[in-house]
């Protein structure tokens, strides 16, 4: 594509008025600087771990990374949509545990596997709907709303299960976590499908345009006549479904549903979303950035495990990475006001 000079872009309207010069971006080069930096870091980390340990760069281990990235990755995709629209959802990890438990309990009660999964996903959608209604109709801050629903759902998990786990022997269900298609773990395939759907939704549909617009300036959207409450509600429902999906896959992988499942994973998920370039203020971000960031975090965790890095340190390092990501966000947007 040829460069467009300032003069060619705009003919003067009057006197010497000129509208800004065009910054021509190649269609192939959609990646921004942040995505590029993450790829470099990812490659660097992989080389480092490969040099340090013979076990890192083996097919089995790489597929393990993909499998573990898939679960949190699917949840992070939903969270990305909510954050782009200027919202926030903390209840994701509780929804993961609850949906996993519901699905496991239904399978335990000999309900058909697919129906059980459907009910689990519906539960996620319902929680998203309730979150969305409280936030948009009752005008409660999303952080507080989802903090409350997070506690309520997690508590209900404990009460309903009495703290006990539910084992699953169902082979169909377990294969969601362990199965492979052409050697690729099923969770990784689900991950790709979820990201493809959300990418198309965000970048090519009217809904996606509204999500970015509402995150960018909700008041202007209202003045343009958009029904912002409806679109915000849908982002929470999408996030709920993604969380439920992640929780169900986790249960299938682990083989038991425990009320403490995914405890604290909202931190990993939100770290990945922010690290991936989604602005906390809304209006900016992309699921592709989230995917790269999730790959980065999973590789790091896996590498640290292989190098027998003390487990207690993992959290500290993840915390620092989150802080770093937020600092980058602050430097870009001018910081917290």
């Amino acid at each position, binding site marked *: 594509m040829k460069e467009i000079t300032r003069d060619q872009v*705009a003919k003067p*309207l*009057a006197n*010497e*008025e000129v*509208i800004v010069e065009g910054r021509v971006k190649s269609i192939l080069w959609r990646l921004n600087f942040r995505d590029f930096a993450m790829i470099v870091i990812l490659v660097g980390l992989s080389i480092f771990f490969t040099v340090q340990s013979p076990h890192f760069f083996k097919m089995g281990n790489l597929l393990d990374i993909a499998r573990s990235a898939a679960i949190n990755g699917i949840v992070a995709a939903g969270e990305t949509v909510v954050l782009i629209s200027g919202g926030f959802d903390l209840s994701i990890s509780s929804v993961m545990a609850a949906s996993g438990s519901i699905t496991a309990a239904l399978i335990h009660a000999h309900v058909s596997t697919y129906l059980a999964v459907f009910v689990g996903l519906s539960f996620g959608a319902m929680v998203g709907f309730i979150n969305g209604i409280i936030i948009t109709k009752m005008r409660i801050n999303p952080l507080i709303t989802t903090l409350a629903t997070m506690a309520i759902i997690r508590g209900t998990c404990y009460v309903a299960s009495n703290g006990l786990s539910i084992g699953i022997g169902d082979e169909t269900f377990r294969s969601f976590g362990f199965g492979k298609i052409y050697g690729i773990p099923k969770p990784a395939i689900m991950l790709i499908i979820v990201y493809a759907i959300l990418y198309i939704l965000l970048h*090519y549909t009217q809904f996606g345009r509204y999500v*970015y617009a509402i995150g960018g300036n909700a008041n*202007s959207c209202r003045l343009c006549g958009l029904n912002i409450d409806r679109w915000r509600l849908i982002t929470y429902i999408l996030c709920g479904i993604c969380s439920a999906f992640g929780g169900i896959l986790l249960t299938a992988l682990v083989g038991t549903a425990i009320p403490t499942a995914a405890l604290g994973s909202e931190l990993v998920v939100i770290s990945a979303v922010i690290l991936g370039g989604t602005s906390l203020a809304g*209006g900016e971000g992309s699921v592709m950035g989230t995917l790269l960031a999730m790959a980065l975090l999973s590789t790091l965790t896996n590498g640290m495990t292989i190098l027998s890095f003390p487990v207690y340190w993992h959290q500290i390092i993840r915390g620092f990475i989150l802080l770093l990501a937020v600092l980058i966000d602050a430097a870009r947007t001018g910081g917290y006001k």
Partner: protein
Amino acid sequence: MTFAQVVEKPLIEVRDICKNFGAVQALQNINFRVLPGEVLGLVGDNGAGKSTLVKVLNGAYKPDKGEVFFEGQHVHFESPLDSRKKGIEMIYQDFALIECLDITSNIFLGKERTFGLFSPLLRFLLRRQMDDEAKKTFKDLGIQLENMRIKVKELSGGERQLVAIARGMHFQPKLFIMDEPTANLSVGKIETLLTLERDLKSRGVSIIIISHRLEDIFAVADRIVVLWRGQKAGEIIPREGATMEDVVHLMMFGNRAQSTKE
């Protein structure tokens, strides 16, 4: 001249509009009409109710009392989308643009060209077509613009103003409301905007302009409505020899200046 005005049907007419915010009476029994192709200036001191009045006209606010007639029909605008459907476009004081979106997206926001099924979740954007249409609108405004994918946050205040104007122009409004359109413009650009307003007027578009700059209002307006503390203090017709002092007096005291000659 006056005879023609009496015969002509107003494009928009408001009758006895009242709007309260809590105990504050923002608007009290406002009446006025705008004829097709007429430029109406709306002036008043800060807090006189100018912005509230135009937001009632375009559906952003609902009046507590009173009626709005558009093209002779009694209308109830639930939201700005309703008024946009009827052909009322408005440029807001802060432009109401979405900074993180590009020029085309801003121009088409809420009225995207799409194909697909019933829900916006399943309706896909026709980006090329929208780019081309937006480009044409800019061309009509006398601006040639190649890259429609520049984000609005990369534009200067005056350029944003042009995008806001283009958004209003694009859907060929019958009534164009401009809230402080010259507030962010340099002197050179103000002249450009005034030329544009005269051009729109000649095409039969009615315009309501809110401005603090009385010289701009006097340059284009056929009629000036002065608001004073939520009430209509009076109407002034510049062509009939009214001066800026008359307007300022009305704005400040709510009544016409007593002639000092006698």
